[in-house]
């Protein structure tokens, strides 16, 4: 038996890369919150973010964008449903990372907990329960492909129009971002109270409906 160190390296490299990739955005989202004496006050102190951004930040953005696009493409090209779900995980997680890069911490973690941690699991669960064989294959028919192509082209055109027509502010002053959750919370319970409550009623109806459908005869 030989102790293969290169094997260890093979194992360790993905961990290191993954950690670094995720670390950097979280880093950027770091808020230097002051320690309050009682710890009870809400932190509204903002942090400063320079307008030009760092080189590392740009690098992170491009990596995330590449992962989003790459895994999105992989979803389209893959024929195995579970692999697709894993690629979808890559897309969702990288989008969350981009939120972190934009200092939208709250929406970032919500993206992780709801989509990556909840919806995706239910998706895989559903696939596992219903697929006929362990290796459910996806065979796309020609006319489906054409339809999908047309829809995608339309969407791409729309996005392109938006990109071309939008005014992109090239330079801004330092943006002050407070703890995004405080703003979220107060907005939800003041300005957007009615939509918020309507949403919760909708979810309640969905839950009751699901329970009704799953009840035992």
């Amino acid at each position, binding site marked *: 038996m030989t102790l293969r160190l290169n094997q260890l390296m093979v194992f360790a490299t993905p961990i290191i890369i993954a950690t670094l990739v995720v670390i950097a955005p979280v880093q950027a989202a770091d808020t230097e919150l002051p320690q309050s004496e009682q710890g009870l006050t809400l932190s509204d102190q903002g942090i400063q973010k320079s307008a030009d951004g760092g080189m590392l930040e740009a690098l992170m953005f491009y990596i995330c964008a590449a992962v989003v696009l790459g895994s999105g493409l992989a979803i389209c090209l893959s024929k195995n449903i579970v692999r697709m779900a894993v690629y979808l995980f890559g897309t969702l997680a990288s989008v969350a990372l981009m939120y972190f890069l934009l200092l939208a911490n709250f929406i970032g973690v919500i993206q992780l907990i709801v989509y990556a941690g909840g919806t995706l699991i239910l998706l895989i669960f559903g696939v596992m*329960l*219903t*697929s*006929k064989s362990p290796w459910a294959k996806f065979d796309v028919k020609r006319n489906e492909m054409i339809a999908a192509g047309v829809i995608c082209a339309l969407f791409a055109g729309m996005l392109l129009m938006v990109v071309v027509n939008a005014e992109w502010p090239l330079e801004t002053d330092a943006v002050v971002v407070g703890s995004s959750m405080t703003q979220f919370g107060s907005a939800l319970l003041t300005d957007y109270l009615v939509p918020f409550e309507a949403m919760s009623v909708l979810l309640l109806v969905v839950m009751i409906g699901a329970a009704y*459908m*799953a*009840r*035992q*005869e």
Partner: protein
Amino acid sequence: MANTIAPNNPAENSAPRQADVRTEEMLVNMGPQHPSTHGVLRVVLRTDGEMVLESVPHIGYLHRCAEKIGENVAPYQYVPYTDRMDYLAGMNNNQAFALAVEKLTGLEVPERAKYIRVMFSELNRIASHLVAIGTYGLDMGAFTPFLYCFREREMLLDLFESACGARLTYSYITIGGVTDDLPENFVDVCSEFLDYFEPKIDDYNNLLSYNHIFVKRTGNVGVVSAEDAIRFGLSGPVLRGSGVKFDLRKAKPYEIYDRFDFDVPVGLPGGTAEIPRGVVVGDCWSRYYVRVKEMVESVKIIRQCLRDIPDADEKEGVCNKKCKTVKLPDDEVYMEIENPRGQLGFYVKGDGSAIPARVKARGPSFCNLCVLEYAGKNCLLADIPAIIGSMDVVMGEVDR
């Protein structure tokens, strides 16, 4: 439980349950290499998600032609093969075969040997039930009672070793008596062990039997009614768990069991001080608990043995001198005893020579296992280990 996915009483609910979500049925091979099939049992499960719609046991992976061997060796030489059948209760198996041959040939057994036989078969019953209880806890996911049981079993094995030198396959009880007399201080050490062991049974009860989760896992699971138990020819704790107070030691006393005072525990409905709520007669919990109670009864019998055992007689010894030379008459016999797992029967047919013409063993595990197909229907996947474990099968005996 009002809600649940699992109505676990096949007797009440024999029609396949309507599943809420249509899922794929899947055939799953449980075994022959599986942690909770107690050896090399293979059960093919037809499952719908977590529900098991059908379970079909497949046996034979440990078939070692024991009956064919029996037709080729003299009874005296065949004794060591019998304790390879039910390797957890070697003493009882030796005893069953020895009794069958003695009945066929009319060999006399010395009085002291009879007491030793009863004592050791009861000690082995305790040892076997300890394994059954411990591994049943293991099947339910409780690891610790298993090691507690094995701790006590280790002491029992020490006792066996002191008497016959072996710890698992004893061949101690043999045709015409036992191979060797007891060591000098055996009676003292054995009664000391019983003093130590008896309170331990309460420990097992507190730790496992009355554990709420354990009761929930085993109560009302794999129910076999008394009528069905008799119809399927079940025996031993599995039969008594169904509320049938039938024990060969009382029903048809062999050896000297009619001299002892003991009780036959049976499965009782739950809700009393002793039996927790949620237990019904004939479920896994009842079968398990009958074993626990039987250990108490065995302790009683051993104490009486230790009290009454006659002193060693130099002239008579502990084994009939003719045991090796005896010839089998041209006749047949069927002898049953109460093994820890149930009624162990030996059918022996002689043809006038020293070697039997046919030896057939009726393994209690073999007969008890055939009810799995009936009890393991429309239950949850996690109930299958519970049911198999409560049958307490030893595959060496099923496959012989």
